[in-house]
């Protein structure tokens, strides 16, 4: 169980772009949090601070109570698995199996155990028949799933998934939803970055909204997607999930998910 903490984190790129501006954030061990925001709001920059790929210009990042500044990227990578937005930045194995095995093998996992993880994850992500394929022969979507599998294979206590559902079809999104829920049930800490508000509402318990490098909203999905927050949400370039809009139209209160609408209508019908 590992907590992630950011204290007054500022980050400015060498070209002068201030990407993070006084970010304070605590992600309790074993919780799931979605980080949302407009394009260029600083989501990916924040994610890269969690495993040391970027270091704050000022402020502090701590993983499991230990200041990230005191640890190398390689050390942090044992705690924080980061799945990149663009598969091509991450993939280098010659086969799907090599790619998924790479992380655990370098963590000292036996080849038998590593292959066990490969088979289990490949089947979970629908890559079971592609183990011998070259990653370049997979479509973009399957390469995306491959990057997720290879990060999950390291079984780190913290997972950061940057846009895990981009380009996935409805079945692929369902798979990711289930995987995140299982990770949380297993006590992992999961931070997901997404612009898919339906996925966010269905999968995460807490939502943090970034706007130009600052946190502007932070709460449960019921809170952040409630009607009184829509102006702030829209000010940050986002729209509430459609379920929230439909539930509000029907006078059901805050219903971030479709299940919440069905639940509210069921109890309304029972009262009549």
């Amino acid at each position: 169980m590992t907590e992630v903490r950011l204290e007054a984190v500022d980050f400015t790129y060498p070209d002068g772009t201030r990407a993070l501006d006084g970010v304070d954030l605590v992600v309790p061990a074993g919780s799931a949090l979605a980080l949302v925001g407009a394009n260029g709001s600083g989501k990916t920059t924040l994610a890269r601070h969690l495993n040391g790929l970027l270091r704050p210009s000022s402020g502090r990042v701590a993983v499991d109570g230990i200041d990230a500044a005191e640890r190398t990227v390689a050390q942090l990578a044992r705690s924080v698995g980061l799945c990149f937005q663009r598969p091509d930045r991450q993939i280098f194995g010659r086969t799907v199996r090599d790619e998924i095995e790479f992380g655990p093998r370098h963590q000292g996992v036996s080849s038998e155990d590593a292959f066990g993880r490969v088979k289990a994850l490949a089947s979970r992500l629908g890559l079971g028949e592609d183990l011998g394929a070259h990653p370049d022969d997979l479509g973009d979507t399957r390469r995306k799933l491959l990057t997720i599998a290879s990060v999950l294979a390291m079984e780190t206590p913290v997972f950061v998934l940057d846009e895990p559902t981009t380009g996935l079809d409805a079945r692929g999104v369902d798979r990711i939803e289930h995987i995140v829920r299982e990770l949380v049930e297993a006590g992992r800490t999961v931070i997901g970055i997404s612009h898919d508000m339906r996925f966010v509402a269905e999968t995460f318990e807490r939502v943090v909204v970034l706007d130009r490098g600052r946190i502007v909203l932070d709460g449960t999905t019921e809170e952040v997607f409630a009607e009184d927050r829509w102006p702030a949400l829209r000010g940050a370039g986002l729209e509430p999930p459609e379920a929230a809009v439909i539930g509000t139209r029907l006078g059901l209160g805050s219903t971030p998910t479709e299940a919440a609408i069905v639940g509210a209508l069921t109890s309304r019908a029972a009262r009549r």
Partner: protein
Amino acid sequence: MLRLAGVSYRYPGAGHETLHAVDLELYPGTVTGLAGAEQAGKSTLCLVAGGLAPRVVGGTVNGEIDIDGQDTRDWPMHRLADLVVTGLQDPGGQLSLIAETVFGEVAFGPANLGLPYDEVVSSAEEALRLVGIEHLRAHDPTRLSGGQQQLVVIAGLLAMRPRYLVLDEPVAHLDAASAKLVLTAIRAAATAGTAVLMAEQRPEAWTACDAVAVLGHGNILATGAPDEILSNPRITTLGIEEPAEVRLRRRLSEAGLDPELMGSAS
């Protein structure tokens, strides 16, 4: 009109075809959506319609491909590119890596078409405005976020004012506000006479389409008006996301409630 008739395609070295006997017609002034599950062949069809397969990707195409009745199959890429441009799925991989600024990147396409200087500048300016990235004009495109790079690539394609525009998941990386701008810009391009083919997963994309074609295992399974296609309950079995209203009505029925509790759609 760009027409594919009975088109099959096999990737180099592949043991089987990825597309089978595809018929597709792209008319100037219209947006055609391309829906389908992962591995249905959407990206492949974009490559073939855009002419990158087989010219750049390799592989074998069979069937007829023509533009306004002219067989284009033996046209070299540079000739086809005057008429047809393609936006690939991974926007960062499509940057020129030559331009030092976003403005230079967006102007790169029209400049390479040999357009007069004033026209290059005005079409680049307009494209920046259409997708809402005027404020990024002086930035280094390689240092932008994933979504911002997608906007830069789309602006660059729009600036070329192509007759045929093929887009593979143009709003995949975008926030809601940017996605809306891009879909509006795609509509505007169609109004100006462009024929657009747009593969997507996100249901809001279909609002910008005149027609949607559904691909499954490399075959076109259905083509029709977006409402007609998306209200067909079969689409979930094809891995296509239903619009929220349609899905909710179904879920209410499944829960034993009257779908009419939803009231009329907004």
